[in-house]
């Protein structure tokens, strides 16, 4: 009585087919990531050593380490963060908590989405025009970081806005109905509950900033510098540009060297992404509603 009818059998066959198709797609998606990681570890692994991390490049960059590039990347990312986080969080707070829903606000939102779609080389050229030449910062960490900051602002704004809006409206209404101002509501209720999402957005931004090459190559990153930067008006080496240089611009580089640089770069990004996930899980476990 409850045995399958003919159409049930047909349905089940279709069901299996789709299931397998989706599974294959997913696997296809993971394969490139695994292949890249495996290649980097196999070919770049032997290059890794303390000297590699903490030594200067030597012999026309065919030997030695990547220390100046590593330090330079940290400089670039830190300065970019110092600019983009306050700016992005403030903008997101305005858009989410204060702005009335009108044409102006919608135009701003649209502009932000479009900004996220601008190719990084265009940001680079903008950076040259605006920061290097117009503001006269020259090719420097400041110019490069500002360019990176502009490029990643949309990510920070969108991530922050989404986590602000994930805080239930009922909490805001409760606050306002007791006479709290917008700012009191934001500081006491909205921000504390949105902070995990905001942090996640920031860390994602960090990992993206770390890997960018185009925006910094005209604005502040140098081909080769025999010394470390001392301030934001210095030029600097950077891991991403260094990888480009040793892979394509310098003759007689041993094969393991560019792989080693790439491995360090990707490890930095992976570590930061994992930290972001761990942080998010921890902060989520704290809140209950």
């Amino acid at each position: 009585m409850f045995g399958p009818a003919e159409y049930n059998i047909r349905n089940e066959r279709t069901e299996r087919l789709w299931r397998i198709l989706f599974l294959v797609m997913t696997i296809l998606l993971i394969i490139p990531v695994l292949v890249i990681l495996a290649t980097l570890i196999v070919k770049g692994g032997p290059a890794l050593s303390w000297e590699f991390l903490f030594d200067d490049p030597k012999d026309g960059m065919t030997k030695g380490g990547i220390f100046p590039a590593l330090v330079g990347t940290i400089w670039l990312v830190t300065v970019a963060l110092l600019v983009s986080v306050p700016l992005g969080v403030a903008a997101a707070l305005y858009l989410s908590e204060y702005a009335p829903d009108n044409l102006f606000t919608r135009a701003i939102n649209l502009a932000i989405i479009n900004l996220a779609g601008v190719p990084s080389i265009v940001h680079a050229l903008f950076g040259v025009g605006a920061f290097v030449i117009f503001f006269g910062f020259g090719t420097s960490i400041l110019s490069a970081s500002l360019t990176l900051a502009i490029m990643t602002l949309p990510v920070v704004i969108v991530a922050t806005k989404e986590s602000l809006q994930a805080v239930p409206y009922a909490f805001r209404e409760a606050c306002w109905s007791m006479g709290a101002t917008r700012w009191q509501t934001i500081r006491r209720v909205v921000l504390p509950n949105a902070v995990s999402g905001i942090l996640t957005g920031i860390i994602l931004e960090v990992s993206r900033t770390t890997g960018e090459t185009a925006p910094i190559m005209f604005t502040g990153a140098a081909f080769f510098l025999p010394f470390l930067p001392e301030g934001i008006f210095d030029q600097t080496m950077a891991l991403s540009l260094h990888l480009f240089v040793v892979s394509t611009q310098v003759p007689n580089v041993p094969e393991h060297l560019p792989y080693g640089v790439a491995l360090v770069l990707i490890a930095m990004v992976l570590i930061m992404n994992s930290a972001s996930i761990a942080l998010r899980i921890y902060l989520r476990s704290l809140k209950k509603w």
Partner: protein
Amino acid sequence: MSQTASSITGQDGIAVETRSLNLWYGDFQALFDIDLKVRQGIITSLIGPSGCGKSTFLRSINRINERLGYVRITGGIHLLGHDIYAEGVNLSQLRKQVGMVFQRPNPLPISIRDNVLFAVEIHDEGGKKAGRANKEEIVEAALRRVLLWDSVKDRLNTKATTLSLEEQQKLCIARLLPVKPSILLMDEPCSALDPKGTEAVEEMIWELRGDYTILIVTHNMAQARRASEECIFMLMGKVVEHTATADMFVNPKDRRTADYIEGRYG
């Protein structure tokens, strides 16, 4: 309105008075010429079918409606003899006088103690004036008033959102009391609760009578009948009848009131 609750008395014991109040959401008119006098110190219930404007009316008394940019109002609302739409009215001070309880309990995701102290702190930057011992007293008094003290006194530091819905709603009322409001607006405060919770919260609201003017919106006829002294029946944005609750349920003057009370629509 900077006086304390006890020192203000409206003219002739009227807490809320509206004069031909009209309200539009964009092009849609939600309230039509509302003329009401709500007496001070009693519980008045607002009844009527969904969409009749009960909640809208309630929400214009603490001006929380205005958040929505497209709300337009004509006519006036006077609280305790003061025009709340007059220039120079500070929304924060208004809402200190007029507490609101929502349909779904909405305690803040902070501790029970901090929920009770929230209003105190926002109205006294950081609660600097109230000392620590004083704050403990405030918390205890407010929670006792809503009959919640005994069940939460040992876990004041736990998050308010972990309480049962009934306890959450009681807490939502308790947190209004420390800043000494004179009017409490309640928008279907029991509709998210089970019958037992409803009874407990109703009983508690009844206990507050006398010290506060309470305006309570409800869908529940039995609740309006049990738990209010005067009753306002609204239909399609207009006030149809406003009398003593006992009279309305026994002897409604308007045919539409009678139909609604007997459940012919709603």
